[in-house]
């Protein structure tokens, strides 16, 4: 019960945060000297009525704070306006957000599955050649610019022809059976995942190693060893649980980093995700789309942090006591 109450409180806290985020984004975008309807005006397929409706919806003739109020009201109702091509923004977002989520969730999953064991191993083999080698490799992984790495992998893909270049699905995707479809997506995801995986693995592995070294140094581990517990039990039952907890807090940050890193990677690989959407929208100065995807990015980030916090409450009883 206590936990539920705390979680509820934590969820409530995100609401003012979202309001401030939307205010900041709104004012930044309105700062720009661009006419938000310029593209729509030039598009012959957009009728005059749509234009007027849109202008009225945005309240362009009124002061900025009123405009914000109007925007917020329609945002809550789920009406995000239309893009400069006359499509619905919400449709566009619905199409892109799952792709970005898919990419980031796969990457987070892989980094945890690989990074944590590597971190533990490095801590256990502290200062051996294996540990040194891992440190060198992670240093390299942290230093490669994501877009440059993506470009290099693209060359590799083009030269060998082993991987498809760009997109998430093949042209004949809809005609495939379920298994073939899954295989096709995995095939397309492979390279972008590799780029983001290399990017975030290094940080996680290092953090895990540092935590583990910290924990292995503590009194209760010494006590567990003195008690005559097997090394296996000492490490996996006592040390691991405490070493993993700080990483859960990191999960939120990792998610944030991935969203940013994904934007460039998506761009290079022509991956149909939120990052590329916002980039295209920015280049076309498609205000509605920029504003909506910015909000969606922020919401995803806030929810990611929220999930990390909730997980931490469940795994770490000390936090429950404190609150």
């Amino acid at each position, binding site marked *: 019960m206590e936990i539920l109450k705390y979680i509820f409180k934590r969820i409530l806290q995100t609401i003012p945060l979202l309001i401030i*985020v939307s205010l900041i984004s709104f004012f*930044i975008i309105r700062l720009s000297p*661009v006419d938000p309807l310029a593209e729509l005006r030039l598009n012959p397929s957009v009728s005059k009525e749509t234009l007027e409706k849109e202008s009225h919806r945005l309240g362009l003739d009124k002061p900025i704070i009123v405009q914000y109020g109007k925007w917020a009201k329609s945002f809550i109702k789920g009406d995000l306006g239309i893009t400069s091509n006359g499509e619905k923004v919400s449709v566009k977002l619905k199409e892109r957000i799952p792709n970005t989520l898919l990419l980031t969730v796969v990457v987070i999953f892989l980094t945890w599955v690989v990074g944590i064991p590597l971190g533990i191993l490095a801590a256990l083999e502290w200062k051996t050649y294996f540990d040194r080698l891992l440190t060198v490799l992670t*240093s390299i992984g942290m230093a490669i610019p994501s*877009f440059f790495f993506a*470009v290099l992998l693209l060359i590799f893909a083009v030269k060998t022809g082993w991987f498809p270049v760009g997109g998430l699905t093949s042209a004949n995707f809809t005609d495939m059976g379920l298994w073939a479809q899954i295989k096709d997506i995995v095939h397309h995801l492979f390279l972008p995942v590799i780029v983001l995986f290399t990017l975030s693995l290094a940080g996680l592995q290092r953090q895990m190693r540092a935590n583990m070294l910290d924990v292995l140094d503590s009194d209760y581990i010494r006590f567990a060893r003195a008690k005559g517990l097997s090394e296996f039990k000492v490490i996996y039952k006592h040390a691991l649980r405490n070493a993993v907890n700080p990483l859960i807090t990191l999960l939120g940050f990792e998610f944030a980093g991935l*969203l940013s890193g994904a*934007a460039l990677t998506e761009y290079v690989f022509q991956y149909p995700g939120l990052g590329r959407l*916002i980039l295209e929208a920015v*280049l076309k100065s498609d205000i509605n789309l920029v504003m909506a995807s910015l909000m969606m990015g922020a919401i995803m980030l806030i929810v990611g942090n929220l999930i990390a916090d909730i997980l931490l409450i469940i795994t770490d009883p000390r936090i429950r006591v404190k609150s």
Partner: protein
Amino acid sequence: MKEIITQLIKDKFAKIALILLGLMYLALFFADFLAPYTKDFSDRTMAYVPPSKIFTIDENGQLSKPYTYNYTREFNQDTLEMDYKLNRSKKYYLKFFSSGQPYKFLGLIPMKRHFVTVEPDGRLFLLGTDINGRDVFSRLLFGGRISMTIGFLALFVLFPIGLLYGGISGYLGGKVDNIMMRFAEAVMSIPSFYLLIILASILPSGMTSIQRFILIVVILALIGWASFARVVRGMVLSIKNQEFVQAAKSIGQSKLGIIVRHILPQTTSFVIVAMTLSVPSYILSESGLSFLGLGIQQPDASWGNMLKEAQEFTNIIYRPWLLTPGFLIFVAVLAFNLIGDTIRDVLDPKSRVR
């Protein structure tokens, strides 16, 4: 501080990294002199020329002064591609420390000497040319000036903001603190790269390159101040109840005076560390932004916007020399990271990065 320096020199990796960065900055400082061409030199007939071959043994097998041949461009009717062939009819000898294109050293002193140039009509493209027939090697040097300094400049804008913001928020506490921190958290909740591209895209287009450079610096600073301010606030909270602060209060020092003169100086060592640690991320941000075409604009060079050409398949496959800026970014970031690791080890022995 002394300990950090001795440790940096003692550590093998950090020493190499320091030397490497030292050499890089030295080369960038003397970029005008080291580059065979000026930043804006372009030979439109020489687009996408491969790196010049330099010969030291002539056709008779005799040792000779280093010389090079020019390339000729021909359209191949069969493959529908441009062929680049060495024109072996005329040799061009390399000239060291002789006069070439005029330039202003550091933008001030007019000079003509270049480290290496080639005889008149010869072309020396050590790393080939780009789409406009500009020398990639020269542009790497000039682009490096921007890419390697923009991070530091952004930090110099960001740190005063973060320090003051965190200082005020932590010292005043209560409602002010609450509001200020919610605002900082909100800024942190926007994915930083999204914010970066949006801020960059609202820059008006008719700016001079210097104005644009300054605004990019400001934008980079706007991205990072919030998380820095939060950490500063945490430190201020622990400092503000100490006796020397109360002493300052009792002699009637103003609040801002206490924050700026007494509390913030206590955070100096943290500030220095945070600075070294965050330089690489700014180098990466700038290059990413310029790579997308939203950062430093042509004809100015930066490593990021030079890589923009690597977005085309034909370029990366047939013209691998266009990828060189990427390797330089990699080396620079790696070197900064290695130094950062060592500093962290010294200040926090528990972190044990290495």
